[in-house]
Each structure stands twice: as structure tokens, then as C-alpha cells.
């Protein structure tokens, strides 16, 4: 007994130092530290003043693109990245007001953002829209009730990306190749329902691939599900690059130049095409977030992004390349980066991306019209788990 009690008294000695008084001292020391921390806040706030918060697809905060803007305005562009329109909507809807100044979104979501008053009306005169290709000077999805809500920065076409050592140019003339034996277990998927299902909807013969009846939607479901034996996997943005490179995926539908151009530059035998059934157009455009407290800086950033210099730099963004709508941006790109301009088909003397656009086979990507986003998503989830 004695021994044990002795031990306990020993522990009491350990315990006592932390009596109430000591505890209060400790707490006040902590509070003091917090107060010192608080006094440092004005400095941070000053820095915050010079930060432009951008919500965007991966890579748009890259110094290769934002550096000239940062230097001119003595500010820092901080990018929060997302993949897919739905995560973007979630972030816009759930972040505290003032979190973002500029949002880079896909055209199909601009209407939703405008309706929820998450983005501001813009004055078309502030931006060099007159320098844009005529097709994009008054780009439908960016206008709500005759008001401009977003400025187009980049775009591209989605069809099939494929390895040229597995498929020939002739093979990929139709989406039918997706069911080909050569692609058994080698057909990769970008893990986002919208582009893939859009391309398959075109294959089904729907003239407006996202505005389809219940029967057409059922048929689309069957078309999609019949591709399951071909599937090699469902990839994130970055994984698509590695899977096409290492050959695990020999083709990916619903993607395009944005995936293959960078790989081609690194010598990977890949190419992208828009099959005869048509392709989907994706777009990235910038809007001013309504709750921003730095709207002048936000406007200046969008002006920079739509200017020839911003456009040319944006076209060859290190994360993925894209077409640009500003013709003066094309001029600059051809002058400074002729090889890249050629790879992007941004030349005036050969068949270029705008000629493909004029062929009428490119359909603007939309969110589902007659069904809910949820219904399409659920079909995608089901497809993945088959």
C-alpha cells in the first residue's frame, strides 16, 4: 500500500504545477501571442489588397500567363483550380463573399452564374471584342437578356484523341471506331459526364446533342453502356496525359487538341480529330465575381487576358493549349511562336480552326436541356460502376 501511495504523491507533485493560476498565466500568454498576431493583420490586409483571386481550370494562374499582368499592376494572381463545371458552381455558391474576384468558367455555366447573381454585367466597350473573329464577337451563351456577362478567352473542339500507332486517320472518321476491336480494353475516358456523353449524343444522330428527348436520352444511355467492354479506365485531367503516353489508353472520346498538342510536342504519337458526326466546342471565359471588392483589378485582368499579348500567352499555357478568339492574338502568336501557331492551326494561309468551325459540325457544349444535370450524372456514375 505504502509504495503505491508514494507513487501517487509523486504524481501529485507533477500535477500541481498546473493549478488554476498557472493555467491562467498560460492562457494570458496565449492571448498575448494572439494579440501580437492580430497586430500583424493590417500588413496582411495590405497584401490582400494586391491579390487577385482567380477561380479557374488548372494552369490559368501560371506565371507564363499572368506574369506581365502582375508586373504591370504590382499584384499577385492567386488561382484556385477546379476540374469540371459542377465543382466550379459548388465553389461559387458556397465560398464566402469576396473569396474570388474573377471566375474562369465554361460558356454553358455562364447563364446559371448570371441567374444566381454571382457574376456582374460587363460593358462590351471595355474589351477588344471587335478584334475577335466575327463568330465570337457576340457569342450567344455569354449574353443574358442582351447583357454581356463573360468574355471569351479560349476554346477548343472535342472529338476523339487517339494514339496514331494504334488507329489511322481513316479509322477515326467516325465515332464508330470506339467500338472497334483494336480498342478493346484500351478506350480511356475523361471522368466528366458532359463532353463524353455530348460526343456520343452526336453519334446517336441528335442534331442538338444536349437538347434531347426522353427516348433519345434512353438511347444515349444504351450507347454509352455498350462501350463498357472497351473501357480501360476513368481518368483525371493529369492521368489522361500519362495514360495516352504509356499506351494504357489508345483513344479517349470527348477530348481533343487540349490533351494531345502538348504530348505531340514531347514526341508522343497522338492526334485528335473531329469525326464526321461532329464535335463539341468547349470554351473558357472570364467574368467578374459580384462579391469581389477589387472589381477594377478584376476588369483589368480580363482586359489583359483578352488583349493580344494575354491571348497569345494563354493559347500556349503550359498546362494545356487552346484556340484563342482574338485575331490580333493570332498575329502575335504567328510572329512570336510560329511552330506553336501551326500546331494550333492558327494560321491565315492554311485551313485553320475557324474553317472547321464554319463547316458547321461543331456544337457548343451545353448543360442538359430537357433532363437535369443530376440525371446525366447518375447515368455516368452507373456507367462507371458497371
Amino acid at each position, binding site marked *: 500500500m505504502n509504495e503505491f501511495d508514494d507513487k501517487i504523491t509523486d504524481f501529485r507533485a507533477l500535477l500541481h504545477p498546473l493549478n488554476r493560476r498557472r493555467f491562467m498565466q498560460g492562457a494570458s500568454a496565449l492571448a498575448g501571442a494572439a494579440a501580437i498576431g492580430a497586430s500583424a493583420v493590417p500588413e496582411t490586409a495590405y497584401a490582400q489588397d494586391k491579390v487577385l483571386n482567380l477561380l479557374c481550370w488548372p494552369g490559368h494562374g501560371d506565371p507564363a500567363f499572368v506574369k506581365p499582368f502582375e508586373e504591370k499592376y504590382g499584384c499577385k494572381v492567386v488561382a484556385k483550380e477546379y476540374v469540371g463545371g459542377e465543382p466550379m458552381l459548388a465553389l461559387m455558391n458556397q465560398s464566402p463573399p469576396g473569396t474570388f474576384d474573377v471566375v474562369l468558367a465554361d460558356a454553358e455555366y455562364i447563364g446559371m452564374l448570371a441567374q*444566381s447573381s454571382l457574376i456582374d454585367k460587363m460593358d462590351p466597350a471595355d474589351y477588344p471584342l471587335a478584334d475577335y473573329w466575327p463568330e465570337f464577337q457576340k457569342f450567344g451563351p455569354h449574353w443574358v437578356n442582351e447583357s454581356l456577362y463573360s468574355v471569351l478567352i479560349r476554346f477548343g473542339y472535342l472529338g476523339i484523341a487517339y494514339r496514331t500507332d494504334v488507329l489511322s486517320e481513316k479509322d477515326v472518321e467516325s465515332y464508330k471506331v470506339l467500338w472497334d476491336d483494336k480498342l478493346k480494353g484500351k478506350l480511356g475516358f475523361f471522368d466528366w459526364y458532359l463532353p463524353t456523353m455530348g460526343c456520343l449524343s452526336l453519334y446517336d444522330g441528335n442534331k442538338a446533342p444536349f437538347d434531347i428527348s426522353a427516348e433519345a436520352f434512353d438511347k444515349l444511355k444504351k450507347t454509352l453502356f455498350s462501350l463498357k467492354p472497351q473501357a480501360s*479506365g476513368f481518368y483525371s485531367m493529369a492521368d489522361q496525359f500519362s495514360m495516352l503516353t504509356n499506351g494504357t489508353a489508345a483513344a479517349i472520346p470527348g477530348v481533343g487538341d487540349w490533351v494531345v498538342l502538348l504530348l505531340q510536342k514531347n514526341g508522343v504519337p497522338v492526334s485528335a480529330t473531329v469525326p464526321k458526326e461532329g464535335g463539341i466546342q468547349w470554351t473558357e471565359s472570364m467574368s467578374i465575381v459580384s462579391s469581389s471588392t477589387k472589381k477594377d483589378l478584376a476588369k483589368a485582368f480580363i482586359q489583359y487576358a483578352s488583349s493580344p499579348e494575354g491571348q497569345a500567352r494563354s493559347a500556349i499555357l503550359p498546362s494545356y493549349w487552346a484556340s484563342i478568339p482574338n485575331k490580333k492574338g493570332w498575329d502575335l502568336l504567328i510572329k512570336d511562336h510560329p511552330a506553336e501557331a501551326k500546331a494550333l492551326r492558327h494560321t491565315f494561309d492554311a485551313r485553320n480552326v475557324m474553317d472547321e468551325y464554319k463547316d458547321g459540325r461543331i456544337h457548343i457544349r451545353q448543360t442538359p436541356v430537357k433532363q437535369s444535370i443530376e440525371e446525366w450524372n447518375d447515368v455516368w*456514375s452507373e456507367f462507371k*460502376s458497371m
Partner: protein
Amino acid sequence: MSDARSTQTLPSASPVTSSARATRLRFAAFWGLPPLVWQLAFFVVPLGFLVAMTFWSVKSFRLTPDATLANWTFILNAGFFRNAYVYTFWLAGLTALLASLIAFPAAYTLAFRLQPATRRFLVFMLVVPFFTSYPVRIYSTQIFFSPQGIINAALHPLGLGPISVLNSPTGTVIGYLVLTLPLVVLLQTFALMNVPKTLIEAAHNLGCGRLRTILTVIVPSARIGLVVAATFAFVLAFGDYVAPLYLGGSKPPTLSILIADQVKSGNHWPRASVVAVIMILTLVAVMSTMLALAYGRRGAKP
């Protein structure tokens, strides 16, 4: 102090005894409370929140507090959920079994056949994988198994392969083993080291063969540790997100991928919460079954 001393000789002096008890209680509280508070703040409270969220709804990508059962009925009736559940359970079980079988010879050697110094070194080597973060290890495994990767390059001169492991359940299981195997070997080694040597010697003295000693003496004696090791493997594999995504190519998706998908595709945190709660319930059930198996009475065998 002198008061405290006197109580030792007079245990019946109740006021002082209660002070001693209070001291003991304070002592327990001092050391026991912080972990308890930590668990309350970062496990129980979020868990309650998670359960509450299963009854919320999502309106135009915004979470709205609600009291609806829609998420539960949707998930429980969704074919893709059932597929993913069966698949995840099966793969985690397979991983636990494979990890246990592969680990046992290694653990046996470590525990019984090696000098203490060698054993210490090898145990240290088994901890080394934990120096690197797990996603990094999975990414390097992906490079190993890619069609032109190191493994296929090594197999090619032997006239074998190419083997295709990525984007398949095999890839997922390999990833699970990368995660669980070192831990299972460690746990099994410690379990085997605690088997009384006298029992093994007695078995040998009584003319029991080596294999029979393992099966009838060592495994039953180390049962608790072996079962705990397998359970750990199951728990880790069941909830893992990295291996099925990067090695399995989400083909088919596991429950953890389903959670991410529900959030990603429609900001559907409530549905994701339903999946998470079902996963937690499953793990609780598996753990209790396994622990009952480990600590339960052994069947009377001749």
C-alpha cells in the same frame, strides 16, 4: 502532505480518503482528458455532423439543412452503389487474406529464425516505407507497372509479358498491398514474438513436426495478433481512395471513389455522407466480428 501520510494508516478516515480519490481522479483526468477532448472535437462531433448531413438536401448546388430520407433511398436503391459496395468489400477482404498469407512466412522468419540485431534492422526497414507519403508510393508503382515501365522492360528479355495491371482490380489490389503489407508483417511479427517459446519447445519435445507446430501451436497462440493484423488490412483497404483511383483507374469505382464522385458531380455532400455512414457501419460490424473471433472462446478441439 502529513495528512496524506496519516490516511494510509487510517483507511477509515473518510474525508481524507475522498481527497485521495479526488487526487487520483484529477490525475486520471489530467492525462486522460486531452485525448478525450481531441476525439470529441475531431471525431465525435464531425461524425454527428456527418450523420445529420445525410438528411440534408442540395438545391442548385447549395447545401440546405433538411429532414429528408431521399438521400438514403437514392443511394440504397442505386445499382452503382450496390456494385461498388460488393466490389469494395470483396477487394478489401481479398487484400486482408492475401496480405496475411504473404506476410506470414516473413513474420515467422523475423520472429523465430533471425538474430535479434538482424531482426531489429529488418523491422526498421519495414517502417521505412512510411517515410514517404502513400500517394507518392502509388504514383511510383504506377510508373513501375505502365506498359513500357520497369517491370515490363525486365520481363521482355525473359520472353514474358507484357503484363497489363493498371486500370484493373489487380492494380487496385497491388496498391492495397503496397499500403497494408508492411504493417501486416510488423503486426504479425510482434504477435509471433509473443508466443511463449516454452510452448514451441514443448511441442518439439513431444515429437510435433514443424508444420504441425505452426498450425496447432503458433497460429492459435498468436491468433489475436494475426486477426488484428488482417483486420487492419481490411480497414485500410476498404477506405482507401488512392490505389483504386491511380492503379485501378476507377474501373470499377470503389466506395471511396463514389464519395468523391457524388461531391464532384453535383456538390452532393448529403449522398456522399450516406455512403460514408454506411462505410463506417460496415467497418464497425467487421471489427466487432473480427474481435469476437480473436478474443472469443476457442472451439474445444482434441
